[in-house]
């Protein structure tokens, strides 16, 4: 292989089974990893531990014993700052640092070399890097939809990371930032829940026509929309946001990327994610000289098709296809 890209799978991809099937557990997920030939995985602490932010020794040991049994390895710990967990105040900076430390402690026990950081305020980046260094664990702050790489706050984050001079803090871009159009399954789901198709089309067409989430909800109500249309607005302005991919912005992130969240929603029988420009993203990653991991992060569970194993398999195949084509091109142009 000319490129130095390795693959991992986030257990987050198995959300539907995890939530719907009481008996579905780490065993089942690790068997899938074995079938996929994947060793590295990410685990989201608040999703899969019963005690959070401080999983018990029993929980940690249970997980590690299964890792050994199935020969898989916790690569990254999906952490986060639950800044709103107190009912009487937002977390103070000191409380946030404490939470980061808890995530570091858990990642340390798991043997993870990386943490997916989320909710770490930009002004704490340098302080957080100090703690990460103690633990010898790198914290990758996630750049996630509806943020886009060119957003001033993302650029300010890069500036702080740069100024820290620390190799223990960096970024993990989530490819959900580059969704270019709503997946048809998303719209079908709203329709299934009773949304009006004309109103849905209006929302999609006017997503970037100067509306805020509030003003379009106002408008949609006038058109006769209700709770289902409100859900659609909230998601399409939120984690299912879409827009022409901000590839220039992505390039500006690349020097600071520690790994990538290969977020995707659906890959059809042709092996293509039709809403996220994987080909362009992977090309930029390879061109940047990145050595490391792309973590497959399936989020199509929001369509409730219960198809994670097949989708994750297709995703890995798609990535390998794209990378080998890039390889061929590179060789042929040499």
């Amino acid at each position, binding site marked *: 292989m000319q490129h130095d890209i390795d693959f991992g799978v986030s257990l*987050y991809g198995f959300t539907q089974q995890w939530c719907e099937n009481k008996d579905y557990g780490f065993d089942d997920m690790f068997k899938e990893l074995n079938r996929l030939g994947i060793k590295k995985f990410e685990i989201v602490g608040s999703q899969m531990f019963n005690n*959070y932010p401080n999983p018990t020794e029993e929980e940690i040991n249970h997980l590690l014993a299964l890792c050994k049994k199935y020969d898989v390895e916790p690569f990254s710990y999906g952490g986060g700052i*639950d*800044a*709103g*967990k*107190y*009912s009487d105040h937002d977390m103070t900076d000191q409380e946030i640092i404490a939470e980061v430390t808890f995530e570091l402690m858990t990642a340390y026990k798991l043997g993870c070399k990386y943490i997916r950081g989320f909710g770490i305020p930009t002004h704490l980046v340098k302080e957080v890097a100090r703690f990460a260094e103690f633990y010898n664990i790198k914290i990758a702050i996630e750049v996630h939809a509806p943020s886009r790489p060119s957003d001033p706050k993302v650029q300010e984050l890069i500036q702080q990371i740069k100024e820290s001079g620390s190799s223990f803090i960096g970024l993990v871009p989530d490819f959900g930032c580059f969704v270019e159009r709503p997946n048809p399954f998303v719209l079908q789901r709203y329709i299934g829940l009773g949304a009006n198709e004309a109103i849905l089309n209006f929302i999609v067409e006017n997503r970037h026509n100067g509306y805020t989430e509030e003003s379009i909800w106002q408008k949609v109500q006038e058109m006769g929309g209700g709770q289902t249309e409100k859900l659609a607005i909230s998601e399409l*302005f*939120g984690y299912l946001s879409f827009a022409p991919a901000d590839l220039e912005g992505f390039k500006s992130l690349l020097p600071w990327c520690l790994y990538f969240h290969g977020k995707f929603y659906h890959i059809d029988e042709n092996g293509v994610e039709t809403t996220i420009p994987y080909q362009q993203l992977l090309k930029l990653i390879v061109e940047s000289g990145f050595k490391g991991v792309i973590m497959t992060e399936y989020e199509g569970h929001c369509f409730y098709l219960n198809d994670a194993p097949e989708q994750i398999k297709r995703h890995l195949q798609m990535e390998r296809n794209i990378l080998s084509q890039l390889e061929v091109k590179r060789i042929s142009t040499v």
Partner: protein
Amino acid sequence: MPTKFLKLGFDDRVLCERSFRNIYLNGNRVGFNLGVNLNYYRGLHVSCIERLEVKVNGETIPEYLILFCINGKKFSVSQLKDLFAEFWSIKNTAHLEIYNYGLPEGKHDIALTLELRIPYMKFAPRTYGAVDSSAHKKMTILN
């Protein structure tokens, strides 16, 4: 991730048929138990519960008749907001003990209103995304 109002599709797991049962004391029916799971992809701190209401056959249960039981502990509804150190995980069923003298054998219309703050989805000071984990089901209780 920032999405102001979320409702996932794991509705069916919220009201737990298996743990829907009357509570007896010394042969007297004193209440019923309602097992509740989160309709979300991750666990949440109990302090994130912003609204919890139960309607049985159209009638709202007064709050003071409800005990919220989780992690082996029992709380009143008004205490929930303070429980930042109690985690309600995805695999962990919370139990509502409702001391209304229980329900007669048969089918009942149970409507739970359960709204939670999403603690990592901060939009502004004290303003967070919310997830709706409400559910509505006709369930059978055996005596």
